[in-house]
């Protein structure tokens, strides 16, 4: 992730330290593994309250893959776990097929200059749970084959279900677009 | 230090810098692929080559049919002979000019273009950039040859893109010929991956920029590989004649000596007189650095090749290696003068790159050698002082030709 961002010209810091996080323009929340252990890790570092405060102050926050799911209210992965509740909605298992693995196109269902230029591009997905929530927070969907949310947004809080850092040229272009626009907002 | 294993047939070991595999019988991948030279139907393969190049011929003669990279040595004559005379194509010769040219090399290259009546493009990179790069790569990687390898492998590709001539015709594929990286039947083509991995020791031009503060983009951009998009737009493709012709450098050079007056020279550090006659350093300083870094040198490549062709026995090969590989340098002063370093600093730089697996320092200026030739099964019957070793290569001239032992950058070469 850091390499992709540096490659397109942004400066990156990786940290769980609030003092460091306070100095940057945009917070990026990646995620690998399972929901309960990820939330536990955030609680242990005192980052749950921190992120909720930052969201209230309109600080841009981007969640990627599991990071996107953490933005929701709660998840049913393994056992019911409360999330950051920054974009209301629940995380539920995918239905047949049980995994979404591979390159899939995103379709914009709302007008949003952050994502419009990437409409119809393919990105790499690798997950088995999905966000379920109000339509107003869903910016893009992908077909599984039924539509599932691939990009969600509430204000300056953004969730990407796919991995832009693993999506080659399309991913780089999207990151560049989102971050440039959010940082100047 | 892990044990290196040796091929039972040739003189190569598992420590070969290109990689080498040994099978259950202890025979190496290079020898196994070499066996194909005596089992494949070369007439059939020639037909395949003919069919392959057919679409690239320009019937109206308005552009060159292909690009042929050449030097004043290295099978260039044979390649041009095959392309122009046997395949009937109209090639554009291209050559990356280096600073270490011998007068014989200049003469051979001039003779090449005149005897075969070909058009030729030269690329000369400015001396300050080349010396800056050479100083950095010598210091860090122990290499004096990066700019030459980079230039020789990229100038033809850049020319293909710029002049929209898609087909590049090379001779033999070094990985295939030395270590059997590919079968002849894989019909391997030129790739950027091979160049970065093996020709450039893992470092392309832009990698040098991030490693060395002293280098600027203006010093290295000329060595950049063309973009994939440009390569695809022109349809650039590099093929190897060695996949379609039974490649035998000794026999080929001798044919070119007879038919086209290719001239050759003896070397101290090897018994082969045909290759690398265009460079004062390849078989001299560069070869000694190879021995320091890898524990073996070019004479082992030559011996292994001749063993595989059945012209030397393994014992004769090993004896020739031991006879030549520690020979002293002849042209070190010229290099030091060119680069602007003194001999002591140069030796210090070189010693820094001696591989501890093969060299042990016993006293200041004194090193014990435990390289490949020393590690071969202690064969008491191999006597390095043998005087009855086969003398199968013929030198008909000298590197200096009719000049001094001085580098020539651009020379008249004719007559």
């Amino acid at each position, binding site marked *: 992730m850091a390499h992709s961002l540096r490659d397109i010209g942004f400066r990156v810091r990786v940290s769980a330290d609030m003092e460091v996080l306070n100095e940057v323009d945009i917070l990026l929340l990646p995620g690998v593994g399972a929901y309960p252990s990820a939330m536990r890790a955030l609680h242990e570092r005192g980052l749950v309250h921190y992120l909720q405060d930052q969201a209230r102050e309109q600080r841009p926050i981007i969640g990627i893959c599991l990071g996107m799911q953490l933005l929701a209210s709660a998840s049913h992965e393994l056992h019911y776990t409360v999330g950051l509740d920054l974009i209301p909605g629940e995380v539920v298992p995918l239905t047949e097929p049980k995994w979404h693995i591979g390159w899939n196109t995103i379709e914009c269902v709302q007008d949003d200059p952050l994502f419009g230029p990437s409409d119809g591009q393919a990105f790499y997905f690798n997950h088995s749970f999905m966000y379920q929530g109000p339509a107003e927070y869903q910016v893009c969907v992908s077909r599984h084959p039924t539509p599932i949310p691939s990009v969600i947004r509430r204000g300056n809080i953004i969730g990407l279900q796919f991995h832009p850092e693993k999506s080659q040229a399309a991913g*780089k272009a999207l990151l560049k677009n989102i971050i440039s626009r959010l940082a100047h907002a | 230090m892990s044990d290196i294993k040796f091929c039972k047939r040739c003189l190569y070991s598992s420590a070969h810098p290109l*990689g080498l595999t040994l099978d259950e019988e202890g025979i190496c991948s290079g020898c196994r692929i070499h066996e194909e030279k005596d089992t494949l139907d070369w007439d059939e393969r020639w037909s395949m080559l003919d069919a392959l190049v057919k679409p690239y011929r320009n019937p109206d003669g308005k552009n060159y049919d292909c690009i042929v990279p050449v030097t004043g040595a290295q099978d260039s004559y044979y390649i041009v002979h095959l392309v122009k005379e046997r395949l009937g194509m109209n090639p554009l010769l291209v050559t990356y000019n280096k600073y270490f040219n011998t007068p014989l090399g200049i003469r051979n290259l001039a003779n090449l273009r005149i005897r075969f009546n070909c058009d030729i493009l030269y690329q000369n990179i400015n001396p300050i950039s080349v010396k800056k790069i050479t100083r950095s790569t010598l210091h860090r990687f122990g290499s004096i040859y990066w700019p030459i390898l980079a230039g020789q492998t990229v100038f033809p590709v850049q020319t293909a893109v710029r002049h929209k001539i898609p087909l590049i015709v090379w001779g033999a594929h070094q990985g295939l010929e030395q270590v059997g990286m590919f079968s002849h039947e894989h019909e391997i083509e030129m790739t950027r991956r091979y160049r970065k*991995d093996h020709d450039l020791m*893992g470092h392309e031009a832009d990698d040098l920029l991030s490693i060395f503060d002293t280098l600027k983009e203006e010093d290295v951009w000329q060595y950049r590989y063309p*973009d994939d998009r*440009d390569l695809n737009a022109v349809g650039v493709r590099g093929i190897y004649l060695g996949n379609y012709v039974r490649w035998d450098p000794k026999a080929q050079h001798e044919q070119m000596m007879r038919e086209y007056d290719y001239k050759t020279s003896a070397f101290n550090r090897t018994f082969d007189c045909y290759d690398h006659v265009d460079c004062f350093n390849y078989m001299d300083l560069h070869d000694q650095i190879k021995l320091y870094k890898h524990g073996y040198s070019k004479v082992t490549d030559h011996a292994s090749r001749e063993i595989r062709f059945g012209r030397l026995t393994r014992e004769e090969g090993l004896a020739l290696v031991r006879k030549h590989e520690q020979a002293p340098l002849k042209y070190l002063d010229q290099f030091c003068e060119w680069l602007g370093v003194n001999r002591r600093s140069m030796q210090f730089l070189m010693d820094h790159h001696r591989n501890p697996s093969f060299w042990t320092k016993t006293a200041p200026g004194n090193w014990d050698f435990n390289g490949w030739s020393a590690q071969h099964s202690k064969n008491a019957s191999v006597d390095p002082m043998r005087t009855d070793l086969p003398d199968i290569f013929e030198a008909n001239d000298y590197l200096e030709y009719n000049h001094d032992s001085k580098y020539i950058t651009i020379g008249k070469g004719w007559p």
Partner: protein
Amino acid sequence: MLKKRLVGVVTVKDGWAVQSFGYKRYLPLGKPECLVENLDRWGADEILVQVIDRSVNGSNPDFELLERLGRLGLETPLIYGGGIRSVDDGVRAIQSGADRLVVDSLLHDDLAAVRGLSERLGAQAIIAALPLSWNGEHVEWLDYRHGSSSSISVEVLSLAETGIVSEILVIDWMHEGHQDGFEQNLIRNFPLSGVPLIAFGGISNSNQMAELLQMPNISAIAAGNFLSYREHAVQKYKEALSGMPLRLSAYESKYPTLTHV
């Protein structure tokens, strides 16, 4: 629409990237990093690095290799296989830079660990590798450390059926490296339906690839040796497969020479 994938495979033995033929003959290629980086630049849909001499030597995963690959800054999903003996091994491999894992020996040695990996990392991160052969009537499963073949065990099949692993890598080990060699019966007669399969081993031409891509249980096709013979191999295969559900080919452009074509 979800595309099927063309996976580029890099086989590593004794620290070298190699060509592998029928699980017994090897030709050297070069540094694994150079091959992986090249596949990344070409736009392979996933890159699979399989280190084939770890389990045989009782070693754990090659974490140093993963860390070196991590420093390359790859932008393509990376799958790692070779020497994963426990949940900790798998977790550390992911932390070292892999996105998904392949397990082979572990399927013979410790199915509980496979389940543990799936719980910890998610089933989408776990692929079961099955080297298979066709004996004329049914599919047989190779235990490559002992060189013996038998039916796929009920337990392993159940792992796939119950969704502990997300995909199965079907390796036609006998035809590895052989032109046009892949045995399609391994897919047509695979004992389970409805489980996504990745075909690998002797897949060399676009006709074969098209036939496989049209099979419903195939989610991806993988090639190793055959991607090493020419420039832009990934793109050229994709272009020969236009009309198939694959992501389109792309050519990188960082320092363009031609201003118009």
